[in-house]
């Protein structure tokens, strides 16, 4: 999550889920938590029982709204207008937590004098390159200092030499004006930027009545400060937008201004949707990162040699200055003895990315025949991908495809459904049965970074195998095929370390051996001589340590201790951080940035909100959690600027955000984000209305893949007048395979439907259970109508706008079926993440059925 990464330093939930019970106010937005994460919602209700105010802002009135104290209806895609309004309310009424925000954020930092905001330039920032449709970042930097990003790609393109400029961070403290009078300090810039986000404007853009909006502002600010904390919970209702990253950024700014980060009951809880989606981001099956948020080498960046790569991506100050240790230890783990100082530890064997290889362009590359062979493991893109009809038709251009799942999915069956003509499709398809947790051992990382082990209790049926088995035995076979090759292109296959022990008649690899490598050990050619490393502080850049993912160091700290399997919760009288229940990255820290739970002097802000504090006698940080800060760095530590300090030596004793180069939460993000240093309201790419806030209609840097099977509707398109938002049901999961094929969950939600507000249903003569047709430029589907007051029309800028909602789980396979909602959606993306915009698009609706 680049949003939280760019603001706080790490792209992950800042607090454990159970800590939500300690909040005094909870704002849920971009999430239907009660239905999508019901077990986590228990903590919201526990907080409510203790007196917390629960608020829900959402386009639909859901069960989350029903249990909340306050429901704020907002039009899909207008979230930044709402959150920007909260930021304005906080700043204009002086409701921010002064001692916290002044010291722990970059509120007082002075920005380059060339900077011009979206308030001046009508919706774009200075540095806009109209021809390249991108920003040049020089004018967003701190005065006289260039700041590297804390995201995986630390290096960004600037016109001046990026690295020479960032080194100035070691020369002096960042330029600040603690009186906040300087016209270009972040505080002044933010006040100008958000001045137009008044309650009246919030109502005009979002449709939420101004008095309801102000109640949300009041409850949030009243419950933040020394004695009280508020939590914000969000899910994919925020990420699935062309402005998704900046929506979450806006929430992160609110929490930093109110002093709610790193403290009990405070923070941002990102609610993620798949069991190990956090783990598969940390250990990324993603194109742009290596494990532990290291950047993937890029052909068009100065990444030619290891020296270039390390130099350009190392940040001079803050924790990320340790980057070379993590990179070299990873290469040692992958290439073993073949990695030597002479060959740059095998750096040259790594593939280079050349652009955006994420899921949306991937599906386009399949359609265009660039990709010949595709593996699909536990995913169902024919249901789950944007523009699903195009995705399904595109699969026919593959030479071969391997689908690994527990049942025949729509993806596996693309060649024999609907209009597909098998005789014309040359694709060779393998459908291989997989096993589940319970039939295989391994670890999942949950939504709050908790890495939990699961046992193998029974064998999977028939020829089903784990992905661990599949990857292991595929790798052995392919390595054998390349064993005699002398072609340099085959060197990485031959040199890749692959000595995992197997057990049993099925030759299942030992998952603990893999976790041990992920955790890291001292390097020795002989596995018997390797020793587990307990903490990433012990990793080295000289090849003496091997580590598959540095942030997981400590998950398997000793040969006989798999910490992810620890199962001792705190008792009712314990501190409630549950340090002996599994392992949380990094270093078992449960609340990120928890140095911020103490004041600049190192004392808890209040007795009620104690978490971590400075023990002057022991001269170390102590408390209920593992410190997310150097244990022995005193609160009054000041860098010795004459010595040009680097790394953590340049971070003061009251800079809690150690992954950021200056140790402070970035309200204003100088580099790393492609669409602006401050969140700005843009309309969704398909919107029924012009942007009431700026001339700039949509996110100027948003990704569009223009093609005749991926067309977008014009603004205010009379042919597609309604807003469509897609969502999840409690009883179904994502692409639907693991619930539509299970009798109980299928019975609970047996058939697809669309939710339609009564006013629109009356206009079109639709009643509940009628067949209706939804249509966009990408495709048309039919489903059953569910007429409900849960959806309501909005008056946006004087115009009535109807919204329709549709769950996206359904497909034609399994016991519970329905048309695929994603046939309607388009491939468009957030510029930072390439995340699609399936939460806010436009569509047509009519009563009737499709002619098939």
């Amino acid at each position, binding site marked *: 999550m680049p949003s939280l990464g760019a603001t706080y330093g790490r792209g992950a939930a800042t607090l454990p889920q159970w800590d939500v019970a300690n909040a005094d106010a909870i704002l849920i937005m971009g999430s239907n938590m009660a239905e999508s994460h019901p077990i986590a919602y228990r903590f919201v209700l526990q907080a409510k029982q203790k007196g917390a105010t629960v608020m829900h802002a959402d386009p639909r009135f859901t069960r989350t709204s029903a249990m909340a104290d306050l429901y704020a209806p907002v039009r899909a895609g207008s979230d930044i207008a709402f959150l920007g309004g909260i930021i304005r309310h906080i700043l204009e009424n002086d409701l921010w937590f002064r001692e916290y925000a002044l010291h722990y954020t970059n509120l007082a930092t002075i920005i380059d004098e060339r900077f011009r905001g979206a308030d001046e330039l009508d919706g774009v920032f200075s540095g806009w390159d109209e021809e390249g449709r991108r920003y040049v970042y020089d004018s967003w930097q701190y005065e006289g200092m260039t700041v590297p990003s804390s995201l995986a790609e630390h290096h960004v393109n600037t016109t001046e030499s990026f690295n020479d400029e960032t080194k100035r961070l070691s020369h002096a403290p960042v330029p600040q004006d603690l009186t906040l009078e300087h016209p270009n300090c972040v505080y002044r810039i933010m006040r100008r930027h958000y001045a137009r986000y008044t309650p009246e404007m919030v109502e005009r853009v979002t449709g939420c009545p101004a008095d309801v909006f102000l109640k949300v502002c009041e409850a949030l600010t009243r419950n933040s400060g020394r004695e009280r904390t508020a939590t914000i919970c969000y899910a994919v209702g925020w990420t699935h937008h062309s402005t998704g990253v900046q929506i979450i950024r806006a929430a992160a700014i609110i929490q930093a201004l109110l002093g709610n980060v790193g403290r009990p009951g405070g923070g941002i809880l990102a609610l993620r949707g798949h069991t190990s989606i956090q783990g598969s981001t940390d250990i990324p099956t993603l194109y742009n990162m290596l494990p532990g948020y290291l950047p993937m080498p890029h052909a068009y960046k100065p990444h030619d040699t290891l020296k270039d790569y390390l130099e350009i991506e190392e940040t001079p100050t803050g924790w990320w200055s340790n980057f070379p240790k993590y990179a070299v230890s990873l290469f040692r783990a992958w290439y073993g003895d073949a990695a030597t100082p002479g060959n740059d530890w095998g750096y040259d064997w790594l593939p280079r990315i050349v652009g955006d290889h994420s899921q949306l362009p991937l599906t386009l590359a399949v359609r265009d025949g660039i990709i010949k062979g595709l*593996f699909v493991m536990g995913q169902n893109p024919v249901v789950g991908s944007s523009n699903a009809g195009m995705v399904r038709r595109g699969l026919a251009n593959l030479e071969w495809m391997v689908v690994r799942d527990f049942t025949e999915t729509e993806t596996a069956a693309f060649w024999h459904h609907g209009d597909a003509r098998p005789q014309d499709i040359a694709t060779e398809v393998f459908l291989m049965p997989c096993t589940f947790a319970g039939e295989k051992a391994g670890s999942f990382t949950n939504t709050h970074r908790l890495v939990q082990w699961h046992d193998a209790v029974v064998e999977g049926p028939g020829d089903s195998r784990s992905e661990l088995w599949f990857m292991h035995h595929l790798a052995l076979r392919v390595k054998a095929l390349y064993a005699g090759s002398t072609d340099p292109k085959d060197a990485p296959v031959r040199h890749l370390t692959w000595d995992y022990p197997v057990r049993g008649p099925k030759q299942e690899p030992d998952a603990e051996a893999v976790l041990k490598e992920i955790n890291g050990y001292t390097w020795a050619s002989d596995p018997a001589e390797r020793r587990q490393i307990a903490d990433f502080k012990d990793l080295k850049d000289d090849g003496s340590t091997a580590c598959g993912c540095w942030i997981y160091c400590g998950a398997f700290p000793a040969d006989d201790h798999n910490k992810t399997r620890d199962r001792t919760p705190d008792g009712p009288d314990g501190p409630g951080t549950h340090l002996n229940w599994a392992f949380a990255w990094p270093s078992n820290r449960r609340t990120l940035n928890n140095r911020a739970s103490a004041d600049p002097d190192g004392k808890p802000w209040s007795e009620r909100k104690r978490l971590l504090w400075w023990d002057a006698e022991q001269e170390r940080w102590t408390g209920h959690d593992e410190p997310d800060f150097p244990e022995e760095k005193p609160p009054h530590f000041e860098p010795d600027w004459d010595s040009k300090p680097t790394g953590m030596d340049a971070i003061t004793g009251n800079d809690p955000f150690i992954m950021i180069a200056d140790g402070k939460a970035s309200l204003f993000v100088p580099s790393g984000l492609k669409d602006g240093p401050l969140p700005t309201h843009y309309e969704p790419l398909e919107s029924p209305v012009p942007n009431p806030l700026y001339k700039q209609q949509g996110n100027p840097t948003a990704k569009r893949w223009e093609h005749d099977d991926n067309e977008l509707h014009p603004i205010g398109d009379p042919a597609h007048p309604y807003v469509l938002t897609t969502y999840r049901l409690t009883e179904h999961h994502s692409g639907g395979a693991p619930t539509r094929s299970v009798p109980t969950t299928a019975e609970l939600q047996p058939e697809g439907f669309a939710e339609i507000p009564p006013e629109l249903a009356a206009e079109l003569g639709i009643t509940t259970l009628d067949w209706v047709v939804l249509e966009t430029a990408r495709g048309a589907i039919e489903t059953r109508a569910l007429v409900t007051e849960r959806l309501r029309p909005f008056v946006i800028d004087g115009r009535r706008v109807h919204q329709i909602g549709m769950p996206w789980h359904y497909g034609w396979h399994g016991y519970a079926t329905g048309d695929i909602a994603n046939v309607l959606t388009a491939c468009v993306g957030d510029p930072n993440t390439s995340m699609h915009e399936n939460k806010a698009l436009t569509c047509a609706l009519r009563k009737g059925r499709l002619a098939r």
Partner: protein
Amino acid sequence: MTRRTIADRARGFLREWSIPRQIAGQSHRDEAARSSLSRDLRPRLEEADTVGTGICPYCAVGCAQRLYARDGRLIHVEGDPRSPINQGTLCPKGAATFGLLTSPQRLQHVLYRAPHADRWEVKPLDWAMDRIAALVKRTRDETFVRELPDGTRVNHTLGLASLGGATLDNEENYLIKKFFSGGLGMVWIENQARV
């Protein structure tokens, strides 16, 4: 077996019926709720010969489960009461985990669809693994690029791609990334993080 008289059965019914006992002061939660049926009921879990710790395979909340098996067959899945996350509870999806693992729609064997064929055929696992390994090598060899025409080193193949990972174990993700990226030079590697 002796045949019971109507009077016996009436007495039995009255003895088993909860309402009179509640009127007599017994608690509806406890004594008055008992009957000969409930006395004879035994928890399924008593029959288990194996129990293991599990984590729910659906969303990312991370609810802990206990999996019970007898003679190598799964007999029950329930929330783990020790967990600070779910404290023994599960949602409708998590509670369906047993149904997921025992779904009648689970595949037992590898299915293969040959080019232009209109049906699946069952194939041996070993055959499929060998065939896939050969296809991987063929496609990689056909599409691997060491350098672009301008001399820029890329060392990659754009001909192979992988989707998925968010439903899999960390260890599985690690082997996918290590082998596909670090070994084969694939760059199209993605999971559900952007879905």
